[in-house]
């Protein structure tokens, strides 16, 4: 039996892992949005003492929304990415089997007639590969943009801590908000970073 090496099973695993990393990011972004609403309520009650905090909560909320939108957008592209992964795998497999067939047919009267199918499937395979790589590059770019709000959120969290310190008896609850925003931003950052390295592995396979 002639073993047929599949294009790369690791590619499918990477694609699946990216999907799960991103749905985790989505959850965290929703948490941030909740924390922002919470902070807004506290700041409202704190009134004068937390005046500097109010615009910060709005900003946090915006950042969370932006992250959610970016990921939704990304998921649309990811769907194309899955489809490309599957068709690349299919056409790659077909090419290998056609190649094997033409090797086995050596010496057969009509073996030369296989060349056209072999050529056309090779072109399709290369085309698919090119599209696939192009798409991965686009996704990498997009992930870079998802990181922006997460980075900004960390800066905001630092500011929030300063503002919270002036909020008297509300200090602790506002500090907790700052803390959770900071943690969430960190989680998003790490997840997105993992996605990016998974994607770069996929293109170098």
């Amino acid at each position, binding site marked *: *039996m*002639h073993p047929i090496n599949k294009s790369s099973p690791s590619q499918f695993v990477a694609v699946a892992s990216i999907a799960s990393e991103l749905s985790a990011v989505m959850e965290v972004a929703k948490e941030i949005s909740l924390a922002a609403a919470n902070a807004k309520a506290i700041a409202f009650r704190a009134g004068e003492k937390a005046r500097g905090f109010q615009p910060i909560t709005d900003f946090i909320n915006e950042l969370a929304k932006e992250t959610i939108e970016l990921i939704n957008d990304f998921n649309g592209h990811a769907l194309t990415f899955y489809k490309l992964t599957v068709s690349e795998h*299919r*056409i790659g*497999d*077909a*090419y290998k*089997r*056609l190649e*094997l*067939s*033409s*090797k*086995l*047919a050596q010496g*057969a*009267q*009509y*073996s*030369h*007639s*296989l060349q*056209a*199918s072999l050529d*056309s*499937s090779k072109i*399709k395979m290369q085309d698919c590969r090119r599209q696939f790589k192009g798409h991965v590059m686009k996704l990498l770019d997009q992930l870079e943009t998802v990181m922006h709000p997460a980075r900004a959120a960390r800066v905001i969290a630092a500011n929030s801590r300063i503002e919270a310190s002036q909020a008297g008896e509300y200090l602790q609850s506002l500090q907790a908000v700052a803390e959770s925003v900071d943690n969430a931003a960190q989680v998003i950052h790490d997840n997105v970073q993992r996605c990016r390295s998974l994607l770069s592995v996929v293109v170098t396979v």
Partner: protein
Amino acid sequence: MKMTKIYEGAYQWIMFGRDESKPDSIIDSNQYMVRTANRCLIMDPGGVELFAPMLAAVMHHAPVEQITDLFASHQDPDIVSSLGLWDQAVPHAKLHAPALWEGFIRHFGCNSIEYVGIPDNGGTIKLENAELQLIPAHYLHSSANFHVYDPQAKILMSGDVGAALEGPGAPMFVDKFDAHMEKMRYFHQRWMPSNQAKRIWIERVRMLDIEILAPQHGRMFKGDNVKRFLDWFEALQVGIAV
């Protein structure tokens, strides 16, 4: 892949089978081809693992562009899971297969090949000077299932009916029918679900003039062994798992 010419007249029938390169875990299958002057019909082209050796074997008989028609008796993986690969190799071809199974068989990949659905009551495939009849064989064993009858060559390609599970290198034709019965019994009892379907199929097939009965697994039946097979099958109780 061994190739055996089973009819030579105005056109040819070729049987492909006993593939030495297949993994042991995969059931051996027979593929059949009708070759006319400029066209070929491949019947039950086989599973994914069989694609490369099968296509290579066909290259001894016809160029790729003359493979114009494929036929699938039913939806099983050993029948037609190679479809996605044929779709790349012969995008210009037609697949004749049960209309009922279209949405299922397309899972194997059928983007360029045209799916020609066979209605429940059968039909014909005209391949230049060969006129092939599609004989309904529903529930034998698949719920929508067809056999191919060639009145000129007197061959009935009978899909899984007449199949036997045999070791590698078995002869092409049944020689001693009594010894062969045991190799077919369990397969027919377990895979064939309906005694009624079996009875109706036997009635229909007895009206055909058959010189060779050509199943998708195991050996072919020739001459008197065709009648022996029909009698044996008639007496056999099938659908034993319930």
